[in-house]
């Protein structure tokens, strides 16, 4: 961590400006309300390059003009930005930039929101002296299926290329040729396909890079910008919706360094067309056809009432207010304790309360300054993409040391100093080993490499995946033990940061959507957790189910069991954005708002409450989710007193002790971490060991033998020495970035729809005689999925990986709650 930097006073155009020593002159000038025009300068992209020459200024004592983007301020510096000499330079640079620019503003999408246009008006000579032919390219052409490039408009500012090279590090964009023949492109004109590539359209200062999803859809004077939060993944990036005629036409970034650093992934950017997909549930739909809201809610209330107290609710994607209302509905109106918001198992209340302690929590921003980062049991690229960029930034710009400990190879492996690959189900053993290696310094321990990275670091951020908690009741405790060994609680800028499985996991837990905790993680009557609910539905102990933004048949482990449970249930109410296999089995389907439509708050994994604001109109007969839940509660005899977001938010902040006193104004446009709010001290004490007879949401036997049934003697080690021909293959699964409705229901993203691939190690491929690209059947018990073989060097022998959530061959069909081994065979062999 760098010590606080000194303040200096400089003079710009006669005004005194206070700046921070070392800050670039361009940024300091802004503080004095002096705008210096720039094209290439963009601090998000890293060090300045000084290529466009637009920001030349005069500094007393230096004979030549200097680029203000790259000149750090010094005490007493006297700067002029409006002298004749500077004006001459600015006119010259604008004129040069326009020598080859087509000036086709009237037909250019960027017109009206174009830095080149603005700067030409503000700082240009105002007339053109160029009569010579300009350069020509075929235009526009596909840079990618999502981004069009018009090379004639390009002013070669380098921004997009720097993004590709130094931010997303996909290194696909290059400058080809040189001089005025230079153009932006890819090797061999291959399409630029990378998960963050849409950002280049945000940073392009001209109309050279435009989104196919937005071309000719609107002009800047037709649109409104609506600031909100993307809830397509737990990153909860801040976005601005471009709205025309009450429809979302575009999603652009709304820089928030505390959350997203000003970048967006392509899911968040291009995922908006599914708001209007034909599969969208646009009105209430009881079984048997459309009905009015009155009829549908009556039917839902009637069905739930009939189930008596034998009703449970599972929440997936929901706002804090929605989760809060739903748990009240279940607990108070239906007198049932069975509420959960997790797709599988997870830690108990007291463990969650310990995890929530502010001292042990890391902020997103802490990644920037961490000396060491441990990525544990998650691949940020797939689970919280924007954090992948954040980790890369920490390594590239601040020299952070990275260790990765996961089952499956991650996108970040290339930047690591230590990689630990444990077998699926081996996170607990790894963490125990790591704590030991940290304590005794044993260089022989398999975990020593990771321990070495973490031990010396002054600040450590651990990014850990919620799914390690599925493994065992002891896993997260082992993580807390590692945190204690590292002394994270006492170190500034250190802590744990969870990457959850669902988009608002933290908010829903804190709003009370847990089987053993009410709002504010308060102790409550014991209820069943997700998997127990499933078994109880099958067993008949439960008969009614409310699903809110959850699609168990797609997203939850053990699809066959869920099929059985949904069939066995007497009455299922499914709140869903789109029609899917689950809604097909529901008795009443009720529509959900998208994050462009709803009004509410969400809580980021680092505790930041953020506001999702209604930006677009709701299609069809969709109503506010809050109003629907409130009305359903009242039909069930519960008057919540809630009818809108403000009343719901007030009730939520009152019910959650550590949210007390947080107002909408505190959240504002940037959000507020409750840890920095007025009531952070109200976090409940974790309490000791759970009282006898308290509910256990996990397999109890597991704590004795964390990976009972695992195929290898040492679960920390994936590779086995000499596997026989019939050695079992352990199945690991992961959620692919592109699996699910995001690609299936968004026409522009359809080309990214992943097909199921079984990733095998070269050794296993050879042993089984598998060829890349062939289709095989992967089976476990009675379940089988088809997948295409992919041989990956970095997959350890003895393990195979399949993706969850894909349309065909979903790995969830093979999971059964415990460690799973699979067999692989060719379809022909299977038939024989």
């Amino acid at each position, binding site marked *: 961590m760098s010590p606080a930097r000194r303040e200096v006073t400089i003079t710009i155009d006669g005004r005194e400006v206070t700046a921070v020593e070392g800050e670039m002159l361009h940024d300091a000038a802004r503080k004095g309300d002096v705008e210096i025009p720039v094209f290439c300068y963009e601090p998000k992209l890293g060090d*300045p*390059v*000084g*290529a*466009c*020459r*637009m920001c*030349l200024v005069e500094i007393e004592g230096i004979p*030549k*003009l200097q*680029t203000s983007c*790259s000149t750090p301020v010094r005490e007493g510096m006297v700067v002029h930005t409006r002298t004749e000499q500077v004006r*001459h*330079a600015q*006119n*010259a*640079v604008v*004129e*040069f*930039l326009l*020598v*080859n620019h087509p000036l086709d503003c009237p037909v250019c999408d960027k017109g009206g929101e174009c830095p080149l246009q603005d700067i030409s008006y503000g700082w240009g000579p105002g007339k053109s*002296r*160029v009569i*010579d*032919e300009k350069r020509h390219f075929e235009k526009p052409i596909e840079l990618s299926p999502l981004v069009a490039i018009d090379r004639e408009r390009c*002013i*070669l500012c*380098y921004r997009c290329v720097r993004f590709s090279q130094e931010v997303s590090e996909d290194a696909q964009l*290059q*400058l080809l*040729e*040189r*001089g*005025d*023949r*230079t153009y932006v492109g890819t090797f061999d004109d291959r399409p630029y396909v990378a998960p963050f590539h849409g950002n280049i359209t945000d940073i392009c200062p001209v109309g050279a890079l435009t989104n196919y999803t937005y071309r000719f859809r609107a002009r800047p004077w037709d649109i409104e910008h609506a600031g909100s939060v993307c809830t397509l993944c737990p990153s909860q990036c801040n976005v601005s919706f471009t709205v025309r005629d009450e429809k979302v036409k575009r999603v652009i970034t709304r820089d928030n360094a505390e959350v997203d650093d000003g970048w967006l992934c392509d899911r968040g950017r291009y995922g908006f067309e599914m708001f209007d997909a034909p599969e969208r549930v646009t009105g209430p739909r009881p079984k048997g056809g459309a009905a009015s809201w009155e009829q549908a809610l009556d039917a839902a209330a009637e069905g739930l009432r009939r189930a008596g107290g034998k009703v449970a609710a599972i929440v997936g994607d929901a706002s804090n207010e929605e989760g809060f209302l739903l748990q009240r509905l279940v607990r108070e109106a239906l007198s049932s304790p069975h509420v959960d918001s997790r797709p599988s198992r997870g830690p108990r209340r007291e463990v969650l309360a310990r995890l929530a302690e502010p001292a042990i929590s890391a902020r997103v921003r802490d990644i920037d300054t961490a000396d060491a980062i441990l990525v544990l049991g998650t691949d940020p690229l797939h689970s919280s993409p924007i954090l992948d960029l954040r980790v890369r930034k920490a390594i590239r710009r601040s020299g952070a040391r990275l260790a990765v400990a996961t089952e499956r190879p991650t996108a970040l492996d290339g930047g690591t100093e230590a990689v630990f690959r444990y077998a699926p189900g081996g996170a607990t053993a790894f963490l125990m080993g790591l704590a030991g290696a940290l304590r005794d310094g044993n260089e022989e321990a398999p975990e020593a490499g990771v321990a070495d990275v973490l031990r010396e670091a002054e600040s450590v951020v651990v990014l850990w995946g919620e799914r390690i908690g599925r493994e065992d009741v002891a896993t997260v405790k082992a993580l807390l033990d590692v945190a204690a060994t590292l002394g994270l609680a006492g170190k500034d800028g250190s802590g744990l940061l969870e990457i959850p499985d669902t988009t608002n996991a933290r908010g829903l837990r804190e709003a009370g959507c847990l089987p053993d905790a009410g709002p504010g993680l308060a102790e409550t009557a014991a209820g069943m957790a997700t998997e127990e609910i499933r078994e109880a539905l099958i067993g008949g102990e439960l008969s009614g189910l409310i699903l809110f933004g959850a699609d168990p048949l797609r997203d939850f482990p053990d699809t066959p069991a869920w099929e059985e449970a949904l069939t066995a249930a007497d009455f299922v109410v499914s709140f869903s954005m789109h029609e899917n296999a689950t809604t097909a089995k529901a008795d009443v389907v009720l529509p959900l708002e998208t994050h462009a439509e709803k009004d509410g708050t969400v809580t980021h994994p680092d505790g930041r409450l953020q506001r999702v604001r209604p930006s677009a109109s709701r299609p069809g007969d969709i109503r506010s989710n809050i109003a629907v839940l409130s009305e359903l509660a009242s039909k069930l005899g519960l008057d919540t007193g809630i009818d809108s977001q403000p009343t719901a938010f007030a009730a939520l902040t009152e019910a959650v002790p550590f949210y007390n006193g947080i107002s909408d104004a505190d959240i504002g446009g940037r959000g507020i971490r409750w840890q920095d709010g007025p009531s952070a001290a109200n976090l409940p004490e974790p309490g000791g060991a759970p009282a006898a007879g308290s509910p256990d949401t996990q397999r109890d036997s597991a704590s004795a033998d964390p990976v009972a049934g695992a195929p290898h003697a040492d679960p920390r080690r994936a590779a086995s020495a000499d596997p026989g021909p019939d050695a079992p293959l352990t199945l690991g699964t992961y959620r692919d970035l592109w699996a699910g409705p995001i690609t299936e229901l968004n026409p522009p993203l359809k080309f990214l729809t992943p097909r199921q691939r079984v990733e095998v190690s070269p050794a296993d491929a050879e042993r089984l005689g598998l060829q890349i690209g062939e289709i095989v059947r992967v089976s476990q018990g009675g379940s089988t999925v088809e997948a295409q073989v992919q041989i990956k060097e970095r997959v350890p022998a003895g393990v195979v990986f399949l993706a969850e959530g894909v349309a065909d061959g979903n790995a969830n069909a093979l999971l059964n709650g415990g460690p799973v081994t699979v067999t692989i065979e060719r379809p022909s062999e299977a038939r024989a």
Partner: protein
Amino acid sequence: MPHPLEKRVLLEHAEDPALRTLDGYRRLAGGYATMERAYREMEQDEVLKELEDSGLRGRGGAGFAMGKKASFLPRGDMAKYLCCNADESEPGAFKDRELMQRNPHQLIEGIAIAALAADAGHAFIFIRGEYAEQADILDAAVAEAYEAGYLGKDVLGCRRDLELVVHRGAGAYICGEETALLDALEGKRGNPRLKPPFPAVQGLYGGPTLINNVETLSNVPHIVRHGAEWFRGFGTEQSPGTKVVSVSGGVRRPGNYEVELGIPTRELICELAGGPEPGHEIKAFFPGGSSSPVLTAEEGLDLPYSFEAMAEAGSMLGSGSIIVADDRVSIPHLALRTARFYHHESCGKCAPCREGTNWTVKMLERMVRGEATPLDLDIVSSVQQNIIGHCLCVLGDSMAMPVGAMVRKFREEFEAAMENPELALDPHAVVQAPPETLGASA
């Protein structure tokens, strides 16, 4: 026999092919004795002081004091580098080629001694890709030097390592710009970097780096051998030493001539290089390569050939390459030829150079086609002014200064060319017929 007006130090024994070999270099020039003395008996600061006292100015173009540059490198235990800039690509310059071809060990010895002054453990010679023959010669010489223990681990048993790599460029003029050279050496696109930080502080792979021209480094053994005072005995107060000058263009004996700096320019051009062909006169000349503003014969022939005299006359000595234009040369064509070179070689990173060179070429092309008006001449001049001082590196200025000078000094000729382009036909352009014509006649 060298001409009496020459003063050969770097090119001494240059005619003897044996000089290329280690044995020949030792025998003819007492080679590597100075390096051995420096490594065995001298401290870093002594070598540095000798170089600083000598006043040796960089021979690559900028003329910055070499010893001073070396003294900018921070002290301390870190990876430091020395790069020899052998990317000689400027039209008119061919002196480094001669030095490397005839006396490669002189350069290697210079690098070894400069590495001591800079405390660098790794050195590179970045050689222009087209200099394949010279690169082969250097490779052979470097191998000999490794064999003899002048390079490698524990050089001469003095507990100092020096690795030397000959790296062939891919043929871009811009890679002669020192920071572009570093990027190219690192395997990146050869584009200039923003300065500061200067290479002496943060250069190759982020380490402090000393970058010097071939001729500059070739001077080092002589300075350390004979002392700064001896070196200052040649040349002028501000331009000490000898200089290998490439003379080309409209002269009868083009070639490299090593002279004391400060020699009358007329002697260089008219005596050593033989002057213009009979019946012709010198119209103008570039005193320091194609990037130096041209001087008319009246302005320049009687100036002493030194850094300070050329600067005072509004031009520069640059790399010391004289290109002579006799009275047959059309200045508008010469301006176009010059601008085309820089347009072709501009890397495109910064706008004034990328667009300025392109625009200038287009305007000059119109002029020699007779499709321009005197107003365009004002625009050409103004565009050159708009380039100068606004670019990321000096490439843009390198076109703007000579082209600007030509328009200013020969305005009538440009105006005449616009009126009547046939009058301005460039004889050299006629010689270079388009390829299809050649093919048809063959």
